[in-house]
């Protein structure tokens, strides 16, 4: 993943790329860009001797929406995040309703969604999360899955629902723009921050791991 590791492990052939983690081919929805990366990578198979570690020199184009995320804000117009935590349940359900049309637009455009790992309807996912926050003894909605992993999948589905909706907007394809919006401007972000605060000191439990390392990206903490 990082050049340092490749230098140490010395695989027969490797192409180092400068793109952010999660986007090894560089740009989504740019077939020519992706194929240039692939041709460079597969072209290493023609090397006469190795190990080979080459740097891929073409970066994400400067000035593109992928790169220049400064000053962007999500055009999805949401109600303000309530300051009173007791209002979060209703606000989260209401917010999901506001986001749903954009999510449906994204699914329609892409003909796919990545939501679904929890196997819960998105509103049921939100209700389970709120139920757990209000009462940590709440049962898993899927009896065959323990509460901890169920919460993880539930939160990943909720984040994906929001992220897919937001990234369908013009100028919102940069990962940081989507992420900053989700974690700083939404009720879901506020709920998950509260979850972290409540459980970050739980030791030796899945819930503690989730709060510390399994929900919020390090670059937001």
């Amino acid at each position, binding site marked *: *993943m*990082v*050049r*340092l*590791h*490749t230098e*140490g*492990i*010395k695989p*027969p052939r490797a192409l*180092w*790329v*400068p*793109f*952010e*983690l*999660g*986007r*090894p*081919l560089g*740009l*989504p*929805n740019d*077939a020519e860009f*992706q*194929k240039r990366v*692939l*041709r460079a*990578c*597969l*072209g290493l*198979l023609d090397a*006469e*001797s*190795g*190990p080979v570690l080459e740097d891929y020199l073409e970066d994400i184009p400067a000035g593109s929406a992928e790169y220049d995320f400064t000053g962007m804000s999500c055009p999805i117009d949401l109600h303000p995040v309530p300051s009173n935590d007791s209002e979060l349940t209703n606000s989260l359900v209401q917010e999901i309703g506001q986001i749903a049309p954009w999510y449906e637009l994204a699914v329609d455009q*892409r*003909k*796919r*969604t*990545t939501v*679904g*790992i929890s196997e819960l309807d998105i509103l049921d996912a939100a209700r389970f999360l709120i139920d757990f926050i209000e009462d940590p003894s709440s049962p898993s909605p899927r009896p065959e899955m323990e509460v901890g*992993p169920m919460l*993880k*999948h539930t939160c990943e589905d909720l*984040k*994906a629902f929001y*992220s897919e909706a937001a*990234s369908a907007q013009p100028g919102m*394809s940069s*990962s940081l723009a989507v*992420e900053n919006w989700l974690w700083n401007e939404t009720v879901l972000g506020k709920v998950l921050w509260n979850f972290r605060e409540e459980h970050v000191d739980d030791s030796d439990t*899945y819930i503690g*791991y989730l709060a510390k*390392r*399994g929900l919020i*990206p*390090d*670059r937001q903490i």
Partner: protein
Amino acid sequence: MARLEDIPEGEREMLKALPLPSFETTPFVKGKPLSQRRVSILSTAALQKRTDKVFYRGEAGYRVIPGDTASNDIIMAHGSVNFDRSGFQQDLNVCFPLERLHELVKEGFIGSVADFHYTVQGGLPPDRNEDAARQIAGLMKREGVDTVLLVPI
């Protein structure tokens, strides 16, 4: 891969301190011309079909993605939150470039694309996935694959 300096400090220091496996040899073989090669993808993104058993936290093992799987049937179960998922949400090819490989076949750049592709969950000590790697290699050989495109997430 990514620039180390772009990774948040905590994660960066953890990555810098990771113990790496060492090997006594550095195997290297030459093969057929690219235009005759059969390529299979091995991803570390814990991708899986919707109907697969979900990768659990820290699970070593693999899932099979048949080449005719609809992109809407592929989801991601990786436990880490420290890489971008929005690119994957917009375009599966940004981390699992199956469509791009088929286009490279049409261009004559590579010979063919395998019928089956594989995923594991990265972020584990590499030796924990040795059994999975050996099984995947055996399956690929049986299918006549001579080139593996390893795509880390």
